[in-house]
């Protein structure tokens, strides 16, 4: 049994407010093995994105955040690391792709400046020529035809799909062990989204990158992920292999989520008075896919 790339155990998160602590995560556990693509699916506000940010260590610096549980990255408990060595992982061993690629790129610097900054994370003091070379080959990998022109452009001069591919190239440039994809391309239109995801999928397969894929888009998840965790109000409610989970959802919330996908034949959006009482039912696991069995 090899150590999983990412192992989250019993993670809780609360935000301290004037009127007590608001609980956001109620002890979630998940793991990703090397080269595995795992999806975390849930509605807005269910705690998907904060999970990714805790992994990167970005929420810990908020004074109001209260976090318990453990996050292990390649067998190392991140909480035991010094802040500096934890910071050193960002952009090198783990990287992230964001929802809206165009606004995730700085508007006053050309793409190359930011690309070089990313490359510098792994290779401090990289020369301009070398960085450019690396950036061009990374952009070629994401099917960008005129890498030179793109590198000298600003984000607002490129299309959303272009920027998304630039982001993917940046995210994979340092060959990270873990890629956190937070609703990648939700801000893009569907066809472009499908194209870029296909690209990303091929690249992570090639580099054996583990992926935590965060999404509310079930269609995309079905295409992309090997395994799925369904999260509802800060609890994992169902987990299993993608095919089984979609064909035979066990948890009431997963069923409701799946039936909420609009269909061309009509229907799909459930009535509001659909009984949500079952949604808080305990974790439903598919045979052989519980945390204990998978990590044994």
């Amino acid at each position, binding site marked *: 049994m090899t150590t999983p790339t990412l192992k989250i155990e019993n993670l809780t998160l609360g935000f301290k407010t004037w009127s007590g602590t608001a609980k956001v995560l109620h002890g979630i556990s998940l793991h990703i093995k090397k080269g595995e693509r795992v999806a975390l699916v849930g509605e807005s506000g269910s705690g998907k994105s904060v999970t990714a940010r805790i992994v*990167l260590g*970005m929420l810990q610096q908020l*004074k109001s955040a209260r976090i318990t549980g453990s996050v292990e990255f390649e067998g190392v408990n991140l909480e035991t690391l010094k802040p500096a060595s934890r*910071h*050193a*992982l*960002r*952009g*090198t061993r783990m*990287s*992230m792709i*964001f*929802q*809206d690629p165009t*606004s*995730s*790129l*700085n*508007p*006053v*610097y*050309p793409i190359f400046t930011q690309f070089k*900054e*990313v490359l510098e*994370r792994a290779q401090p003091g990289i020369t301009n020529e070398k960085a450019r070379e690396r950036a061009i080959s990374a952009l070629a990998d994401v099917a960008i035809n005129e890498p030179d022109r793109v590198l000298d452009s*600003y984000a*607002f*001069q490129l299309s959303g799909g272009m920027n998304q591919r630039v982001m993917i190239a*940046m995210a994979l440039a340092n060959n990270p062990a873990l890629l956190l994809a937070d609703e990648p391309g939700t801000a893009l239109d569907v066809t472009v989204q499908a194209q870029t995801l296909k690209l990303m999928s091929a690249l992570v397969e090639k580099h054996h990158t583990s992926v935590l894929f965060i999404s509310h888009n079930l269609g995309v998840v079905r295409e992309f992920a090997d395994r799925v965790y369904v999260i509802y109000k800060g609890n994992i409610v169902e987990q299993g292999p993608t095919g089984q989970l979609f064909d035979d959802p066990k948890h009431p919330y997963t069923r409701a989520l799946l039936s909420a996908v609009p269909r061309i034949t009509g229907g799909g959006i459930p009535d509001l008075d659909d009984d949500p009482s079952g949604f808080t039912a305990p974790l439903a696991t598919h045979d052989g896919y519980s945390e204990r069995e998978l990590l044994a």
Partner: protein
Amino acid sequence: MIVLIGVSLLIFAIARVIPGDPARIALGPNATAEAVAVLRDKLHLNDSFLEQYGYFVVDLLRGDLGLSLYTNRPVMADIAQFLPATLELVIVSGLMMVAIGLPLGILSARHRGSWIDHTVRLVTLLGVSAPAFVWAVVLMLAFSYFIQIFPIAGRISDSCTVQTVTGFLLIDTLIAGNFKALGNAVWHIILPAFALALSGIGQAARLVRSNMVETYDKPFIEMAQAYGFPERRIARRYAFRPSLIPSLTIIGLDFAAMLGSAFLVEAVYAWPGLSRYGVAVILRKDLNAIVGTVLVISAMFLIVNLIVDLLVSIINPRIRLSQRAS
């Protein structure tokens, strides 16, 4: 250009609406009625407004702003003598504003919510809330009277003789290679320039802070943090530069507004500048001198704004590239 024509018309009209007869004021209460009438005729004061403006424009195109009734010299010569002192003061203040205000703003935004931020905000609020002349008096009392480390007034000590080349003492002393005089001039300018700059420093720091705090919430900053770019680098490059764009316009306006508030500071520090001259001539209803002074100051205003616009387009690629495309 159009702005300048408008300003000249307006100030020309206003100057003539101020009550009192310029000729009478110039000649004094004991002058005879004939003498006043002769001077009125000489100044074209009996002609219609448009004719007066016509004379003025023709003279202006020849580079002649007329005689000052107050100093009895060409207005151009007066302005040439007083303008450099004011410009020197305002430019030094402007540099202080940028050199102190912007770093304070960055510091405050980077440590937002901490005691550093609160201290900076409190101090800059003080700077903004009291007008320049109050600071001029307070600073003068504190650092020239109680703790005598700065001179009370003036541009330079009488013991230093400097040959006038540009009228800017800091530059003239440098040209002459007279470093003792340069030091003396710097020593004289620090306090008035700082008093003048204080509200600008406060405003610049607060503006940069609030714009930067807003920028810190943008996705591209989160991206920079997620990729582990060094915090300091994020502050100085990724958050500061986008925030500078909206701040810069205001800072430019502030800079130009210093030309106006320079008057009171000049008065407090007996600084022989244009603002002091401007007020003196208004009180004496010296028409030519008023119009000339206002024209020069509004020209300065326009030049500063032009420079700011150019700077903004250098920093903001969106403006730069859209101009190239059109």
